[in-house]
């Protein structure tokens, strides 16, 4: 029994040694980049949807945008929002395009997306 315990501990130690040597292989193996991408995309979408709700877009439409079933392109959005201002709609559209690009390329664009949404918010005040 003791020998089995020691063997198990040694397996764990060797695994850690291999993980530290093949560090990025482990990251890819446990699919951390995918989780990271999903998380930053969800955060950006949540920020976008919050702003759309604030501007009077109906909940059903916001949910479609959140689930990536509908892009609130300029033509759709101006019929639903309390703020059909061209600048606001263009900024929202820009943020959406960046979210799409982030999702497709895996590039972290959360900061420019956040900056666009902040700018869009200032046009509503």
């Amino acid at each position: 029994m003791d020998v089995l315990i020691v063997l198990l501990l040694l397996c764990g130690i060797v695994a850690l040694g291999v993980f530290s040597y093949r560090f990025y292989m482990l990251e890819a193996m446990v699919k951390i980049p995918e989780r990271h991408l999903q998380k930053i995309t969800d955060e950006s979408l949540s920020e976008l949807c919050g702003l759309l709700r604030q501007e009077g877009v109906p909940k059903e439409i916001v949910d479609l945008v959140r689930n990536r079933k509908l892009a609130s392109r300029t033509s759709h959005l101006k019929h639903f929002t309390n703020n059909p201002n061209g600048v606001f709609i263009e900024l929202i559209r820009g943020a959406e395009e960046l979210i799409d690009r982030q999702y497709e390329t895996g590039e972290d664009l959360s900061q420019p997306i956040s900056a666009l949404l902040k700018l869009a918010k200032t046009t509503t005040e």
Partner: protein
Amino acid sequence: MELPTIGVILSYSFNKLELIAFIVASILAFYRKPKSYSIAISAGVMSAGLALGDYLHSNVLSLLVIDDQIYYWYLVWAVFSLFQAFAVIGFHWLFGVMFNELVKLVFITMAINAFLNTLMFIDRNITGLNFSGRPNEYSDDSWLLWDVYSIGVNANLLFLALALLSRGELKGKLVWMFLLYCCCFAALSL
């Protein structure tokens, strides 16, 4: 005051110092810009593991008879060392956070600590690693491995805590990292 008492107090203080250093590293990584969630997770898991391990050893294992204490002591610390490293991977996955280079250091130090604890487990319960022919069960049987173990595990933890506190400032500076490790080892050898 007798010397052994000072020794016990010093080792207790270092233990608490490591715990505090991990907590501070975690808070700084979480709140100070640029934020590093990876370091915050690593330091947070390390501090939680240390606190839990301390609690378990002082409140649960101390209730056992001395033979059982000797049997479980190193086993629990070895399992905890491995558990901490795997928990770091798990929390990175859970929160979708990419690894910082310092996570590699967590794996290496925890692997060494688990290995030292496993050697002590073998030495004290299965067979003496100094070829004594029987397990080195009692403190009279103390030999080099015990000294390397008692300094090594704490030096590793202190080094890791300071490396996490530096937030990657020592990245790539192998000479400085080696010197820092030597300083930790020397401080604990006093």
